[in-house]
């Protein structure tokens, strides 16, 4: 009890010292975290708002709204459109991500050889990435137009006329995935190419001296060492493909029928075209949930393969 007084006095003395420091020194810790705090708030406010409004009947049609509990969620979960939208989202994401990853890897390996041609191609391949997806879709619509499209004219040489492209339920997903590939495959190629070029040379030289075949080298050296890069490409592409809106909307608005009505397009139509904002939010929040679960899993695996690739597993 007797010892407590000097301690308290010491603390008071320390505080008084602290108070004498310039205000900038005192504010420094808060200033350092301020940007990240602002970003967190910037992310959280719309997210929390979305959850809140999903529990209301908020509509652009009327400034008055009320709290309706879980009605929007129950309506979504019990409607076939909701499950159809999830299925389309998965189909589209799988079709585009798998094709971009496989072909992107193949093209990146081909481009990793140092020739004059590959040097030019590496520059040209970046071009589609510089075009907004909506513009790319409009360009493709023109190229596949049955009257004047250059691709259509090319098919005419093989006696193929009036290919249905996006206008038939049978070919709409293929057409959308083709445009997606054209726009985003260069991203995958560039990322993998950067990975290939950063790999150490010595294991490949050792394999060549030991007479390892190209397949052996690819399977046992290139692929394991490239895995962290492949994972990064996969995470980015899968997340973006699941959210895809621009290509589908510009191409068919989700049609023909409901063929391409994924979660993003359904949410847009419900929220903006039909002005039922509250009703559209379960679609968007479901999309967030799916992407969150998948990306968390992929990020965890990425950390594992990073360790494996560096030989620390």
């Amino acid at each position, binding site marked *: 009890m007797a010892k407590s007084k000097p301690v308290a006095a010491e603390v008071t003395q320390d505080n008084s010292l602290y108070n004498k420091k310039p205000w900038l020194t005192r504010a420094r810790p808060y200033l350092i975290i301020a940007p990240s705090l602002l970003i967190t708030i910037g992310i959280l406010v719309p997210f929390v708002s979305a959850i809140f409004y999903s529990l209301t009947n908020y509509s*652009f*049609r*009327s*400034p008055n709204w009320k709290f309706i509990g879980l009605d929007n969620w129950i309506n979504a979960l019990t409607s076939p459109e909701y499950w159809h939208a999830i299925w389309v989202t998965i189909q589209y994401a799988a079709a585009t991500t798998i094709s971009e990853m496989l072909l992107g890897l193949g093209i990146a390996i081909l481009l990793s050889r140092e020739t004059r041609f590959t040097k030019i191609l590496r520059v040209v391949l970046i071009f589609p990435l510089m075009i907004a997806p909506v513009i790319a879709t409009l360009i493709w*619509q023109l190229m596949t*137009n*049955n*009257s*004047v499209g250059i691709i*259509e004219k090319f098919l*005419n040489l093989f006696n193929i*006329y*009036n*290919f*249905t*492209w*996006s*206008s*038939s*339920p049978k070919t709409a997903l293929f057409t959308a995935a083709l445009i997606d590939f054209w726009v985003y495959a260069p991203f995958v190629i560039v990322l993998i190419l950067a990975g290939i070029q950063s790999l150490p040379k010595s294991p490949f030289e050792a394999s060549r001296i030991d007479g390892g075949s190209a397949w052996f080298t690819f399977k046992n050296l290139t692929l394991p060492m490239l895995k962290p890069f492949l994972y990064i490409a996969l995470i980015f592409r899968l997340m973006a493909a699941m959210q895809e809106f621009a290509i589908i909307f510009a*191409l*068919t*608005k*989700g*049609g*023909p*029928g*409901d*063929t391409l009505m994924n979660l993003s397009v359904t949410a847009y*139509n419900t929220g*903006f*075209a*039909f*002005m039922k904002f509250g009703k559209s939010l379960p679609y968007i929040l479901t999309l967030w949930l799916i992407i969150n679960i998948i990306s968390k899993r992929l990020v965890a695996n990425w950390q594992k393969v990073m360790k494996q690739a560096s030989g620390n597993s």
Partner: protein
Amino acid sequence: MKRHWQKIITLTLAIAMILSLAACGGSTATTAAPAATTTAAAAGGGETSAAAAGFDWKQQDGSKLRVMFNQHPYAEAIIQKIPDFTALTGIEVEYSLTPEENYFDKVTTALNSKSGDPDIFMTGAYQVWEYAPAGYVEDLSTYINDAGKTSPDYDFADFYPGIVGSLQWDLVAGHKTGSGPQWALPLGFEMYSLAYNKSVFADLGLTPPKTMEELKALLPKLKEFNGPGSYALAIRGSRNWATIHPGYMTTFASYGAQDFVVEGNKLVSKVNSPESVAMTDEWVQMIKDGGAPSWSSYTWYQAGADLGAGKAAMLYDADCNGYFQNVEGASQEAGDIAWVPAPLPEGKSDIFSNMWTWAIAMNSSSKNKDAAWMFMQYFTSKEYTQWASVNAKVVDPARKSVFESADFQAVLDKAEGFAATFDAQIANTGIQFTPQPHFFETTTEWAATLQDIVGGKYKSTQEAMDALKKKMDEIVSDVEVG
């Protein structure tokens, strides 16, 4: 003591108010108001002080307006004349021009914000069914009837009743347009008829169809009429409300079919009625037999462009869509396009064309309502409409005097059959949809169903229309009639 002073102040204020009210009453009584001003005041015209002095184009001098336009020839015509409007009224105008694809999203968001920006916006009749019940648009009736605010030569009666009436509605879902407040004023409109390539028809010895039977018989004869890739009939097919409202709705109404009826206090969809199913069945068969191979992606632009490019022999769409292709230098087939009325269904004698009107409406949150009204009356006046019809591309003017003027008829002479088709159809042209606030959702579902039927998703048209009816009933289930 404190209470005592409060009583004295209250009493003094009350006496002052009574005296000032009496003074106002005296002033009104002693002013000899013209009959027009009295009418305006009775109509609740609001700021009627200008009325006593008569109408003056300069009454809002110094005001500033913001206007939102959809990218359209009608908007371009207005933009050309804004300097003249500013010179006449002293009102400055700022405007934005947005492509149609995003235009209404932008308008809806702006109106919902209640900020008063824009003061005026371009709209159509169907949008009014969403905006008016929400309180986003101003009732224009009071302005039209106010002699102090409206030029004496405005001549509201000169508008075609069906066209201006399409922008009137009493806000009761299920009630037809044509009565109630005036929510917007028409810039121009479009009706739906059949445009055809007269050279192709002449070369093949064909005559343009008068009935749906004749139209169906023509389809195989016009298959690949201009080599591989060419086809008989261009119509819209995208997953959008705009697929339903032109040719489809015109034929639908001419068959005697209805989208909704009022039962009790509810709207009930009738899209699975025998007339509706028979009509839709024929329509789908027509698409399969003579439509564009990529029909389901066809919007206004593709349908019109194919007629102009000589790829389609006929176009069943807005009369002005073909008209724009027929203007010299506009397309390959310019000058070769002619018009006939929409084909009649079996056993019917009248065409009930649906219509679309591009109009301008006033934001109810605008802070410059009187200046906004100056703008609206100027750009829907006889003088402006006459100029826009003859010098710009306002093909279907909403004013009778303009349509019948010699100058405009001379313009139409270059389009064979256009004026005759207009005359044949105008009497029964009107909105064929039932007004209700979920219009865009129900018609988008309708277009998606049409795509599904053509794509073979359903075993029969009846099955598809039954499913559509169910969806439409669900969408309008919250609408109370009356």
